[in-house]
Structure formats: C-alpha cells, structure tokens
C-alpha cells in the first residue's frame, strides 16, 4: 500500500486495524484513535482520495490502495494545506485531539462539494465529534477553506 506517497509493506498480522497500523507500525501518530467503533471520526484518513474511518478497516485491506493521513497533506516545511491553514486562521481547534479527523473529513467534503451550503457543511462535519464543542469555529474554518480554494486532496509525492 502507498501511505502518503511512500510504498509500505502490509502488516503480517491480518487482524491489525489500519488505524493501529498507521500509528504503531508506521509511527504516523497524527491519525488519532478515539472511540474505535466509527463514531468519533478522529481516525479519518483518505482511501484513494475519499475519507474513511481507519478504525473500521483492516490494514491488509489497504493493500494496493493509496492512504493519505494528516501527515501527508503538507510535507515538512511546506505550506499548510488550505484546510489546515483555515483551521489555523479561524481557531478551528482547541485541544486538537479531533483536529486531524476533522481536517481529513473536510478535505473529503470539499472534494464532493467545492462550494458547500451551510447544511452541507453541517452534514459534512456531523460525523466528527469535538468534545471541546468548538463547532462554530470549525464551521467558520470550513467556509474559510472554501475561500482559500482547497484542492480535492493534494497528494504527497516522494
């Protein structure tokens, strides 16, 4: 499987969840794990460009596919991805635990709806939980990301 543009071997343990594989085997700890049953949205990553829950997939299922994690949106030292920039500008995070999941979901939302309505924004982020309840700022950040012209998914290349 390709993770953030780099070819990686699949884990030998077929029971390994993709979320655990990313964090424990590849050290990509930007993907957070909250509920581990698909409710909180913290572990959202892009599978071939579309957001999915990495805790609801076995890592071996990603063989032959391309995974993008939060680390893959902007390379070290490079400019932030427009969605990241927008969260930064609008204070779309407080403790930050939910942020990687929100950012990946919003990247997917804007790929589907480049100019989302308020309702589309609300539905688009409804699958992610923020326990700091900073939803108003997050919604502002989505609108700001639209202004910044977020590309569908700027894939990392190595």
């Amino acid at each position, binding site marked *: 499987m390709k993770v953030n543009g780099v070819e990686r071997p699949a884990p030998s343990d077929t029971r390994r969840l993709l979320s655990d594989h990313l964090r424990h085997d590849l050290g990509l700890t930007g993907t957070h794990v909250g509920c581990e*049953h*698909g409710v909180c*949205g913290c572990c*959202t990553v892009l599978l071939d460009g*579309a957001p999915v829950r990495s805790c609801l997939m*076995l890592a071996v299922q990603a063989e032959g596919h391309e995974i993008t994690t939060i680390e893959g949106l902007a390379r070290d030292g490079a400019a932030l991805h427009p969605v990241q920039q927008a969260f930064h500008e609008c204070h779309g995070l407080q403790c930050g635990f939910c942020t990687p999941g929100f950012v990946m979901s919003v990247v997917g939302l804007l790929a589907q709806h480049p100019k989302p309505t308020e309702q589309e924004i609300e539905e*688009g982020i409804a*699958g992610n939980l923020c326990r700091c309840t900073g939803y108003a700022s997050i919604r502002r950040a989505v609108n700001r990301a639209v202004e910044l012209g977020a590309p569908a998914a700027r894939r990392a290349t190595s």
Partner: protein
Amino acid sequence: MLASLEDAKVLAGGQSLIPLLNFRLARPQHLVDINRIAGLDRIYERDGGVAVQALARQADVEDSQHAARICPLLTSAIGLVAHRVIRNRGTVCGSLAHADPASELPAVLLALGGNVTVRSVRGERLIAAEQLFTGVFETALAPDEVMVEAWFPEVVDRFAILEESRRHGDFALAGVVRAGDSMALFGVAPTPVRADPQNPTAGLQPSADLEATAEFRLHLVRVLTDRAFAA
C-alpha cells in the same frame, strides 16, 4: 470458501461488522473479505427497478443517477444512513445482511417489496424482503450463502422516509417508510415490519431503553406516519 469454513462471516464495507469485532461482540473464526472480487459493484436498471450489487458503496448508490431516477426513495434513505464518511465504505447489501432492526435500508426494501439474490456453491436463489429478515441481526441466509445483489422496485407513487434520532446520523428511535400505500417501520420491533397506515401501531411492542420509552416510540410512529401520509 464459505461452504468449507466453520463460523465464517462475510466482510464487505465493514462499517457494522468491524465495530462488533472491535468490541469483541462478534468473534467469528474466519472473515471472508469480498472486497477484491471484480465486477461486483454495479448499480444498474433491472426488471423495472434498480439492482445494487454487493460491493456498491452506499455513497455511490447515493450519487447514482439510476437510483435517483428509478427509486428516489432509496436515495433519500441512504442520506439518513450514518455519515458520508461511513457511506464511502459501507455497502447497501451489507446493511441488509447485517439486518439491524433500527437501520433504514431493510425497511425500505420491505416497504417496496424488493428482494435479494444470494449465492452459494449450491446455486443462486432469490429471497423476498418479506422472508429475509428473521430476527435481530438475523436473516434467512444460510451460513454458506453470500448476498450478491439487492433489487429495489421502481417507486411510482408518493414516497417518504422519516425518522427521529437523538443526533444526526444516529440510529433512529423510530422510523417510517412510505412507498405509495405501503408502509414499513424500523426501530420498533426485532425486524423491520409492515404496518397499516390507518393503524400503524397495531400489534407493536417496541423495546424501551435509555433513549426512549416504548410509549414514546409508539408516539413517534403515529406522528411520523401522519407526516408521511399528509402529502
């Protein structure tokens, strides 16, 4: 493969099965992942309805022009299934095979009088929606059978799907599907059930839990039925 394995589960989208595995609520001996089977993800017109194959993702059915034109009830129903990120992976056939009593798609199939095609080494057979759902998370599929396709008939009359849930994307406390004069309920019995629009709560004994009492669920059924048939 399913025929040769004891205690195997089919893994498609995994959006219901993997949470159960994560919680150790389901502990099958084997998982048979069907995701790499080519040509099993079509959404197409068949026999005046729309056919959805086993690996068609809910998001793809949601965006399907075939579904929107032939069976817009299906399109509306999918919009109520969890969240888009879940629907990117979850499948329509998976929701039917999982048979959660509170989920939308089994009730839609039942209200429409659709059916599913199941396959095993013994051959293929059709199971009508009426016979498919046998209990909580239980269907009429044999252990060696896999659901390969679901068929939703055309909606020719007025339709509606209405539900009440605590939060957007949650499972419904109670829900109502209208397809013409036909109606099915979800979230209020061990399986989706057909109901009489004139007396929708007849014979119902919904369970009570932290989120809703049985009486509140019955109230929701009456209110949602009125709304579904108001137009």
